[in-house]
């Protein structure tokens, strides 16, 4: 009985282990890319020139997301502007201990276009959420507040859309 048990267990384990043999191909491709160092101020001055390109940036970490550690913010040398960095590559989460440290990040600059269509979609989702969680006013009102804030910001800037930029991490290193 004992032998049967072990045999079955090992057989089943091997069965479940089969069929997954491609994990490092993407990582190797990413590693092959060259990351050129860009000053954060320079990047934020003309971000469209770097969208979807590999960049290497460095800056003081001013905030790390407290819950999932999925994003952090680094500030420019003159502290006038900051950029979001999201997880990916070698970081599945950022440690809160990074706050106050200088971080060097190799990653890819991403862009999100926030136009009327995007805000309308967001508003629909916020309304649906409001219907679902009638008793939880805080959650639903927060989403609606975001929508209203974006609307106001879009009107204020007088352009067709707002752009949000961030760097998706591939490799990062704490410098001090």
């Amino acid at each position, binding site marked *: 009985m004992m032998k049967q*048990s072990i045999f*079955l*267990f090992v057989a089943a384990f091997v069965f479940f282990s089969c069929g*997954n043999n491609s994990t490092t191909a993407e990582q190797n491709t990413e590693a092959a890319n060259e990351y050129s160092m860009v000053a954060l101020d320079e990047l934020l001055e003309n971000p469209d020139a770097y969208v979807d390109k590999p960049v290497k940036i460095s800056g003081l970490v*001013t905030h790390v997301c407290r*819950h*999932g550690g999925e994003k952090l913010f680094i500030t420019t040398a003159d*502290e006038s502007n900051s950029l979001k960095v999201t997880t990916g590559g070698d970081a599945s989460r950022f440690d809160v201990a990074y706050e106050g440290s*200088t971080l060097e990040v190799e990653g890819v600059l991403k862009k999100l276009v926030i136009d009327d269509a995007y805000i309308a979609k967001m508003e629909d989702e916020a309304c649906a959420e409001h219907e679902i969680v009638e008793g939880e006013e805080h959650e639903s009102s927060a989403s609606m507040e975001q929508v209203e804030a974006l609307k106001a910001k879009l009107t204020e800037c007088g352009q067709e859309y707002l752009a949000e930029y961030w760097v998706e991490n591939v490799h990062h290193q704490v410098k001090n």
Partner: protein
Amino acid sequence: MKWRKINRVLHRDFGFFFFGMTIIYAISGIALNHLHHWNPNYVIDSRTENIKIHIDRTDFSNDRALKILEQVNVKSTYKQYYFPSQDELKIFVNGGSVAIDLNTGEAYVETIRRRPFFRELNFLHYNNPRKLYTWFSDIFASSLMLIAITGLFIIKGKKGITGRGAWLTIVGILLPIVFLIGYL
């Protein structure tokens, strides 16, 4: 070997082997379900102090940052400071920060430490280790299906899958569908 015996052996041994993983995922699952109620990864404490130091942005230095830390009784190792805006100064220390309103002199002292136990469980639940753990957790997830399916056929007769078990199984499948219809 009869199929029912094989079924029982699989159910039993996979159940034993993945007992630990099941408990890890169950506990961290509850913790992550309540992210809007608490932070399972960090314990964050805060307090407010009033400081009596004139802060001039153009003439600020590490020494002055250290003096402020002394005044608000923060003994952790100093890291860096920065001015998020014209009216605010933030000083970082190991395991926390001090945010000062330059107009009122009010200092918001925040300390952060890793929450033991839950942080480790969530680390696994989120598959933060990746690499080999991805394989292991995939095997675990697949094994949960195996344990569930073999569990259907453990008991014979009217309390088994041909009797009461069938009704309980149907209700257990219908409930998530009801939630989906209601909330999606």
